[in-house]
């Protein structure tokens, strides 16, 4: 848990060092207000757009007779493999004039709506059709049943996805930088890079943390009312599919349009750059070395994160209480912190506390653990919540001690959850940019940092191979996550 606290402790220490007057002077300015408004506005717009797009797509691919729905399910989830800065880079290299708030909102929406789509699709598939049938039998029409029953059933999944999107947007750095949308993360980075203004960056980071806390509190408050109860019966009938009729082709066109915008534009743009040839010949070994670095660092990060997430996730599922909730929320805070802040605080930590770690890959892995712990905790907790605590009680009653029960019953049952969590952390680690930039050992370049360095100097063609490789490698864990969400399952015969 201490991992998530390092950045917060760092912020606290540095803020105290800076002193109150200095902070007040930095804080109460028009610029901070504007930044706050713009960051929140961007988060709000993108979240709403993602919820609409995500829920709509999820409904179309899980509940209707849409032609080619399995293909569309994959296409809709694939943007997860495209880092926002690659998408932004693709758009900018296609239309160089693109910049500002609305293009940033567009790119972020197209990249992050799978965060809503995947949990909602899983919830739609798992929802009990009997509730909808009861609603219909009580005289509610299709639309009213959808709003009164179906939307309520998927509400927890939607809220969880929306929270991830909002946090993701608040902490996004790559896309807003490339599209020159002035938000907190960009301002923090600019303050650091250009002015070496640590106090300024610090104050801005603190405000960002405050906004995140606000968001998390709001989400907790609404979650109370969304209490769910699940029926005991295991075997459910598959949900009958809605016939789209004449509306099927407009629906298909809409999904095609989204896929073209989210995947087609980056693909075509990267393809063109790649075909134009790398600016320097003989770059292949460098690309491969970067890919190797990306893989090892992300794998180490995923492994470390899962080791930390396992006890937390089990605790969250088995011993819910105020303390557990607080720990859970704290972990989310780490996730919401911009990678820049986490990177800075871990440099501080590495130099002052754990010097042997400084300038090693393990410090970077630790940064990934700080950033992505909640993704892993969530995956472990939901898997543990699905496997009944009764099984563990029975195992204990058969004379097995707590560790044996953990090894022989609990772990095998939550293995899929651990796998999903690891895939998610690995994927996000591959895509992570700012903390990687700050913390990588000198001379170690990953796909993401090479890409960043190339785009920074306008060498778009040199950047293309890194971008392509990054997307291709990221597509693998994405595929794993899509398969796990049940979107690709064959229809069961009733």
């Amino acid at each position, binding site marked *: 848990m201490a991992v998530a606290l390092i950045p917060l402790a760092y912020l606290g220490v540095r803020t105290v060092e800076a002193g109150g007057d200095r902070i007040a002077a930095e804080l109460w300015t028009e610029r901070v207000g504007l930044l706050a408004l713009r960051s929140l506005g961007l988060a709000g717009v993108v979240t709403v757009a993602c919820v609409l797009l995500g829920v709509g797509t999820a409904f179309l691919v899980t509940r209707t007779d849409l032609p080619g729905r399995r293909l569309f399910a994959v296409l809709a989830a694939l943007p997860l493999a495209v880092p926002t800065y690659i998408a932004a880079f693709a758009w900018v290299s296609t239309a160089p004039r693109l910049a500002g708030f609305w293009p940033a909102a567009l790119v972020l929406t197209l990249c992050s709506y799978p965060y809503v789509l995947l949990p909602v699709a899983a919830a739609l598939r798992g929802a009990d059709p009997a509730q909808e049938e009861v609603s219909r039998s009580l005289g509610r029409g299709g639309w009213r049943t959808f709003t009164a029953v179906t939307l309520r059933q998927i509400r927890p999944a939607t809220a969880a996805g929306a929270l991830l999107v909002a946090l993701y947007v608040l902490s996004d750095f790559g896309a807003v930088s490339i599209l020159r949308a002035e938000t907190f993360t960009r301002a923090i980075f600019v303050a650091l890079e250009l002015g070496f203004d640590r106090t300024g960056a610090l104050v801005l980071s603190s405000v960002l943390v405050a906004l995140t806390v606000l968001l998390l509190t709001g989400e907790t408050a609404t979650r109370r009312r969304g209490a769910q109860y699940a029926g005991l019966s295991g075997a459910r009938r598959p949900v009958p599919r809605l016939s789209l009729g004449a509306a099927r082709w407009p629906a298909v066109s809409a999904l095609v349009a989204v896929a073209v915008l989210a995947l087609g534009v980056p693909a075509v743009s990267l393809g063109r750059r790649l075909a134009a040839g790398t600016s320097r010949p003989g770059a292949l070994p460098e690309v491969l070395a970067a890919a190797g670095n990306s893989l090892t660092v992300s794998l180490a990060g995923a492994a470390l994160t899962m080791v930390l997430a396992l006890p937390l996730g089990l605790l969250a599922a088995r011993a819910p209480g105020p303390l557990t909730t607080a720990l859970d929320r704290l972990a989310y805070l780490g996730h919401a912190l911009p990678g820049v802040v986490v990177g800075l605080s871990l440099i501080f930590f590495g130099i002052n506390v754990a010097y042997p770690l400084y300038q090693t890959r393990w410090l970077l892995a630790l940064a990934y653990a700080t950033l992505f712990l909640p993704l892993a905790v969530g995956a472990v907790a939901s898997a543990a919540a699905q496997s009944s605590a009764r*099984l563990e009680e029975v*195992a204990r*009653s058969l004379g097995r001690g707590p560790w044996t029960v953990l090894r022989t019953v609990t772990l095998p049952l939550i293995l899929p959850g651990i796998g999903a969590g690891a895939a998610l952390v690995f994927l996000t680690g591959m895509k992570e940019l700012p903390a990687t930039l700050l913390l990588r050992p000198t001379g170690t370049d990953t796909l993401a940092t090479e890409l960043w360095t190339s785009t920074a100097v306008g060498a778009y063609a040199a950047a293309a191979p890194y971008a392509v490789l990054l997307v291709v490698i990221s597509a693998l864990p994405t595929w794993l996550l899509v398969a796990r969400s049940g979107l690709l399952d064959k229809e069961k015969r009733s």
Partner: protein
Amino acid sequence: MSEVVVNGLIKRYGQVNALAGVDLRVPSGQLTAVLGPSGCGKTTLLRCLAGFERLDAGEIRIDGVLVAGGRRHLPTHRRNIAVVPQEGALFPHLSVTDNIGYGLDRAARRSGRIEEVLALVGLAGLGARMPHQLSGGQQQRVAVARALAPRPSVVLLDEPFSALDASLRAGLRHDVREALRADGATGVIVTHDQGEALSVADQVVVLRAGRVVQAAAPASVYREPVNLWVAEFVGDAVLLPAVVEQGTARTALGLVPLTGAVPDGSVTVLVRPEQVRLTTGTEGVTATVLRHDFHGHDALVGLGLPDGTHITARILDGDAAVVLGGEVTVRVQGAARAFPTDPPVRPPAPTPARLAG
């Protein structure tokens, strides 16, 4: 010897006394049913025995060893008990054989014990199946076999048949009882189903609002309940106000002999519906048929007596031609049990405990 003794067991959830001083003795080699309505604390009692809950007061001994009480709380896995939960709770990632072998050490697994208990529950040859390939009844049989395999001191069954179809239930509970008996196991079964408790158990313990009201053999709980609440809870009851004179009760159904010595005075008499006989003769009281609930093997007939009392009679099908609104002659067969009239006839609503029955 694997006797379970519970003394003065108290378990609270906040303000609610789920168990308010339970004393209990589970004799070795027998099956004891803990019977009570929803919320009476019976599941809490089972969880305390299993060690899933800590006691607030009292003590539990298994085989004479103190497992809970005072400061002591022996963890579940050291108690030598085994649990069969309501929904079976087979380990979904293990085959039937591995499920049953879960509580066994390596030597015991090779000794043929798994096949032995599998045969005991009537599933010989299904060891290679996975839990999802079994029907609900078969899953429950495997859960029982898994509990029996390590030869625990006590097998604790938590409403193990309630999730099953009525048609499966009777056969399964007979088989489970036979399996327990063949293995010489001591068992505690928790249930809210009176028929289940009376038919499978050697001893029935009636629990109400966290206290033991009666503990006796099934027949005596049914025929000689300690109070009117138990009388009504364990079966259909006809309760008649009566006056006792020299050991015989004068009721709306005529003179009824009583069990036990009862002093003269006002009482309430318990007659079971199967004791009310419809006759064609003249000896008896005339009653009007108000209701006729046909159950196939028997039927319940609602009758109105001349003084306005309503009673129920259980008749075997074809015993008598019963016409709604018609008149029949009724009399009481055998002796009845009398209770002092003072306490309320209807049970007050039991205190809701946090864990449902």
